[in-house]
């Protein structure tokens, strides 16, 4: 085994030599101009880039400043081990807003999504449960486990579809202030209200339940097969510090159901070339509209004069002027480091301090010498015409039961990483062989729970422990995996913070709990992308509608900025 390339987790400032000049994003290193921009965007993650693209499209002069050597934030592809490309953090596309894909013409700039087949759940007793992309196929498979579940599944899907449809308009709405009775606010309330009222009373009740129940209780109302309940409930915990039995987790389930691809709900895919190609497509589109994007530029703070953001100060001391500043960093970073206590009042800072931004997940990326053989697939029990390989062309969910997930959460509550974690595993090379040398594979494991605050030990000492827990869990399902591992990259919550700037390693820039959603996200009274500092805006996942590679915060923030300056 070759020694791992450590570039990723060294201080990004310390490794300019590792720059890949063939990367189109890093060309044209012109010196920073002293002109004044209409807007400077701090952070070149997908939301920052999308915000920039919309502003540039409206004719504004925009500069995006990214600290790392590549754009994309947590949506990046990196060759961490020679010949193997990892979507280091974020790994599938499901939530990206279709209007953004079309507004920014992303397919033209190289965005291509490869479909995933379905979800395979290895079961505790050695059997498996497969949900196919194809409804009839899924019905046949579920029927094998429980005829009741097979019949309920269709209705469950339709119910969530309706709920997602009812909530969808909220995703493209600037949240109203719940406590203000201004006409603009009331109009916004009315718009949100109307989209709900279109649903009947029964649907409204169902929605109210979905907004408040636990995902375990919610799926319990529908199904009896443990593996099915576990897998469905698992989408209620992704990225949150909640267990499947925690009230409020059903909403997170809905949040993930909101994904749509080519007009289809709950369809998702792998971008060809990894998640970095999504970011690159957005960046190219932004450039096409005239935005300027600079990497390896660290912003130290926002320049505030007479209570107004007028530019940024770089780490090297340079000052850049702008009509406004948009931060795509999370609220803690935006206010805690970029603005600082001098320009904010005590109450506001207290609210920022109380904003919940607990990291709960980690990522393990594996370079594999071949395909793992899952014990549960040794004997295929479904219809004979589907080859074994097809079962692996989707997500592999390590979620045999609700209790399994809940016990994983129990570990995290007391400050330990899960000894037997929940995992969402994808083998992108099955869809996109270009991610690894011929015959080799890449395996992406989203791992939960990995609490940022360990009660004992430091993450730098626990990285291998977490990696072992992941491999032990995988080896129980696919024993040959140990011999296949060529390289193992463990991205702990601390790594997510240090390398990708995600405070406490929270992938959503703040928890998706009810007290931090919609008009309360990130803070009550500041859900409209504005901040207490005039001319400073937020456009990251910490704003409505929240996390995931969705892009809506970036787009909505751009709308607010454009409205304010015109």
């Amino acid at each position, binding site marked *: 085994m070759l020694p791992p390339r450590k570039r990723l987790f060294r201080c990004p400032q310390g490794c300019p030599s590792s720059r890949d000049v063939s990367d189109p994003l890093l060309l044209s290193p012109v010196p920073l101009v002293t002109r004044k921009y209409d807007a400077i965007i701090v952070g070149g993650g997908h939301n920052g880039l999308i915000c920039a693209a919309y502003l540039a499209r409206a004719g504004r002069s925009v500069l995006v400043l990214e600290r790392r050597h590549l754009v994309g934030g947590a949506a990046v592809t990196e060759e961490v081990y020679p010949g193997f490309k990892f979507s280091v953090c974020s790994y599938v596309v499901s939530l990206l807003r279709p209007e953004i894909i079309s507004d920014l013409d992303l397919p033209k700039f190289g965005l291509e999504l490869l479909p995933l087949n379905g979800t395979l759940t290895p079961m505790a007793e050695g059997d498996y449960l497969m949900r196919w992309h194809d409804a009839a196929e899924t019905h046949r498979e579920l029927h094998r486990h429980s005829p009741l579940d097979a019949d309920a599944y269709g209705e469950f899907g339709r119910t969530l579809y309706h709920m997602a449809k009812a909530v969808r308009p909220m995703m493209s709405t600037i949240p109203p202030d719940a406590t203000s009775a201004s006409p603009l606010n009331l109009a916004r309330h009315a718009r949100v209200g109307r989209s709900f009222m279109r649903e009947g009373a*029964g649907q409204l009740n169902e929605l109210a339940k979905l907004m408040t129940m636990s995902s375990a209780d919610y799926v319990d109302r529908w199904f009896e097969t443990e593996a099915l309940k576990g897998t469905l409930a698992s989408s209620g915990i992704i990225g949150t510090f909640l267990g499947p039995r925690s009230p409020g987790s059903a909403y997170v389930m809905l949040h993930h159901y909101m994904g749509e691809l080519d007009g289809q709900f709950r369809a998702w895919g792998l971008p060809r070339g990894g998640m970095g190609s999504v970011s690159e497509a957005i960046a190219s589109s932004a450039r096409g509209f005239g935005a300027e994007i600079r990497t390896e530029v660290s912003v130290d703070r926002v320049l505030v004069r007479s209570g107004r953001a007028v530019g940024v100060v770089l780490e090297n001391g340079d000052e850049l002027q702008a009509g406004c500043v948009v931060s795509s960093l999370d609220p803690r970073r935006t206010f805690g480091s970029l603005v600082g206590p001098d320009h904010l009042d005590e109450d506001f800072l207290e609210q920022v301090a109380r904003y919940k931004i607990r990291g709960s997940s980690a990522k393990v990326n594996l370079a594999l010498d071949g395909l793992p053989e899952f014990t549960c697939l040794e004997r295929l029990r479904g219809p004979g015409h589907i080859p074994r390989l097809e079962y692996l062309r989707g997500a592999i969910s390590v979620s045999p039961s609700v209790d399994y997930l809940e016990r994983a959460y129990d570990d995290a*509550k007391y400050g330990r990483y899960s000894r037997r974690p929940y995992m969402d595993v994808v083998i992108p090379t099955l869809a996109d062989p270009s991610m690894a040398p011929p015959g080799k594979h890449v395996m992406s494991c989203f791992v939960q729970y990995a609490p940022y605050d360990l009660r004992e030990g430091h993450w730098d000492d626990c990285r291998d422990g977490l990696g072992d827990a992941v491999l032990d869990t995988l080896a129980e399902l696919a024993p040959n995996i140990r011999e296949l591992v060529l390289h193992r990259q463990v991205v702990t919550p601390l790594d997510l913070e240090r390398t990708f700037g995600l405070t406490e390693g929270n992938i959503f820039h703040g928890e998706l709990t009810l007290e931090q959603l919609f008009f309360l996200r990130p803070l009550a009274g500041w859900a409209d992308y504005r901040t207490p500092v005039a001319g400073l805006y937020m456009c990251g996942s910490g704003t409505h509608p929240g996390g995931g590679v969705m892009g809506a915060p970036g787009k909505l923030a751009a709308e607010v900025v454009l409205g304010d300056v015109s």
Partner: protein
Amino acid sequence: MSSRVDVVVIGGGHNGLACAAYLARAGRRVLVLEARDRLGGTAETVEFHPGFRCSAVWPGVGTLHPRVHSELALDSHGLRLLPTGPLTVMGEDGQQLSAQLQADGGSVVTPLSESDARELIKTDDFVRRLTEALEPVMSRPLAPLPPRGVGDVFALLAAGLQLKRLGTEEMRAALRLTPMCIADVVEERFSSPALRGAIAASALRASHLGPRAPGTALSLLHQRAAGGGGGLLRGPRPAIGGTGAVVDALAAACIEHGAELRTQARVDGILVGPTSSDAPGEGSATAIRLESGEEISAGVVVSALDPRTTLLELFEGDIAPELRRSFGEIRSRGCSAHVRFALSELPDMRGSDRAGWSGTLLLGAEIDAIEGGADAHKYGSFSAEGCLEVQAPSVADPSLAPDGRHVVSVWVHHVPYRDDEAADARLQEEVVSSATTRLERLAPGFSDGVLATDILTPRAIKETYGLAGGGLLHADLALDQLLYMRPVPGMFRHFGPGGVVLCGGGTHGGGGFNGLPGRNAAHVVLGGA
């Protein structure tokens, strides 16, 4: 044999009695039917050993809503409240007196850090104002949604304005606070583990959830608002004779206003008459049938039983399948056990003396310990290190025990419901023995003085009081089972299928010992709201 009354109330618990008293006071001919040989349901005072009496379940009567108390003139019917004792958080070793909190005034006897003390005053005041603003929402029937007339619009506006009095900043804080978990609420404000635990434990009384479950802050607000207001901390307030004294006073109020109370009258069916004109297509409840076969017809049938039992077991009319499913899905998870000891003497507490027994003692009330108890409960087991609320009610009220003797009662949090009798018997033993061991550690010599022990587990609560699932609240105080969704979405106005009126804890205002559902339901029956 058949007779007729204006209103028949099924179930003589505190809400059934309160509802009956309000209706009788308004001139209705009311008959209350109680299955057991005594009134009161979970609010009764039991003589669990000759000469030794104790509130069966609820640790105090202070949660009874003040309006119920004064409107039904319970004082004049013999109810005597005693002052609220201190709330003391004990370290597990019994030596460390971690904190003593004056539960009513919000003051803290044990020194707190300066920032804790400041934050306690600030948050306590905020919660007090918030629960005062919420109180009118709890203490009257909810306005119909969508509003059906001008009156309803005004009711909604009034509730909104009441909240608006808080001001924008406080409204925002309230919106944020409501769905939070109580652990976050206390951890972001206080550093004292004792203070954190005392608040969390009080939010979680009768809840199967742990302090880290979202929505548990609302459960605190709900309890306070339904109990007439109050701040962060509120200790149980005793009455002479225990909770049964409230039952006796309510019964006396009923009788004074001419209601008839019958015990040993188990209802086994709610009968549905021919389709009435105002509810076309659906028969309306016109009578009940007793186990004896006797039928009693009534203009209105009111049930104080839990909604699931009322509608899925007693109601004999048709229920739409979706509604039936909703009732079946009501969650009311049994989660507490109640242990009482008859003692020949009350031993001194380690590091203290007998005065340590005044008020309420909290054991295992640290956030992690409570959460650990909830963890065990969710997998169907019991943690011997979970949270206990201990009282010696006979200290303030000597009438509960023979001269010089004492009663100690323990509310054990997070005890699971076991359907199987033998499994429940093992659980009873486990709970009693862990409570005894911990009390012995707290007050050496405790176990030597035990004359008799009695325990009520969730299964026993179901068997004795007929509460589905053994849950004391009739329906858990979960975000999806409150306000417009209590007991099921759309039925918040107390009217069930066939016009059956629900007035138990599973309806709006309910979930605990407060009497509001009975009062609210009576208002709906009288057409006053």
